[in-house]
């Protein structure tokens, strides 16, 4: 499992937290993407400039999840966000 060293939020996205979830708008192509509660927490940490390794630590500490599962889920989410152009790898 390899998490990217650093991820940054793409400049052409707009987010809105609604309730405890988040909807992301990609201004470049007009597409929308929804994040659940944990996805929202991950997004918040990434937006604060935390590297994915730290984000994973935070998720393990805050939620009842094993490290391997947290890494697996975080990697899948980051790959999805990268593929949609919502974040960029800064490594």
């Amino acid at each position, binding site marked *: 499992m390899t998490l990217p060293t650093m991820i940054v939020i793409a400049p*052409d996205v*707009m987010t*809105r937290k*609604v*309730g405890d*979830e*988040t*909807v992301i*708008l990609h*201004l*470049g192509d*007009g597409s*929308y993407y*929804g*994040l659940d509660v944990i996805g929202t927490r991950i997004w918040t940490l990434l937006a604060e400039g935390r590297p994915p390794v730290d984000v994973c630590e935070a998720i393990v500490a805050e939620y009842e999840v094993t490290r391997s599962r947290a890494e697996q889920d975080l990697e899948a989410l980051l790959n999805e966000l990268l593929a949609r152009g919502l974040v960029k790898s800064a490594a």
Partner: protein
Amino acid sequence: MIPPEYTTHGEREQQPIARPPFNEWHSPNGCLWAQFYRDAAGYLLRFPRLADFEVSADGKHVQGWAASGVQPGTMQHLYLNQAMPLALSRQGKLVLHASAVEVDRAAIAFVGASGQGKSTLAASFATNGARFLTDDGLYLEASTSELVAYPSHPSLRLWQDSELAVLGQHAATSAPVQYTNKERFLAGPRIAFCDEPRPLRRVYFLGAGTAQCVAIRRIRPAAALLELVRNSFLLDIGEQEMLASHFAAISDLAERLTNYQLDYPRRYDDLHVVRDTIIRHARMLDSAA
């Protein structure tokens, strides 16, 4: 609401356009329904073999040309249901694919894609003691204190089976629309129309009709936001400033309302149960507020 200034020019042949459209819509069966082009004055909306509409960049002026053989009733319908909501979106206005009815002097909206029963529900209310504001293209304005739903054209479009079940025989129809088999019925003594704006109290997102009985469940704001995005008019998604303000307006709407999914078996005989359940639900929430 100040509608765009609309001018219709009669027939004009649809000349081929060399540049590609920046957006296209397709009907549920995959047929090309509309093409969107930018031009010097604003936008050209092309409905193949039906009509061209030119919309000014600020959305305040619309001109329409019918394709050969297209009747004025069809043009009017295309304008009211497609071109005008899209033009309003250029003015930063919020227009949803929703019908709306008046209950207790407030508006209840039913949001959903074509074919999900918006018009049938509106007709059912409008023929049983309530009034309808629109059967599609719900225009909303937000103030700091409330959301206001505006009435649209005083007519309803129904498939023939809905027509017979909800309206019965001999309802007054308007000119037929050439691109659909739906019939358009004018408001009147039998179909009550609310011609005044009403505060929007509730939004119900229509389900697919898989429920065994009338089912209303609350949906999360993020899911509501995505549904509202899918069911709102926006002419130019490529213009980032407009896209951002549209997103902000839709997000505000999702947050200000308590949103529900409404599903029910699509049986005409049970429409009275659906109506009663919706009214009870809306009143129960009001009394709890």
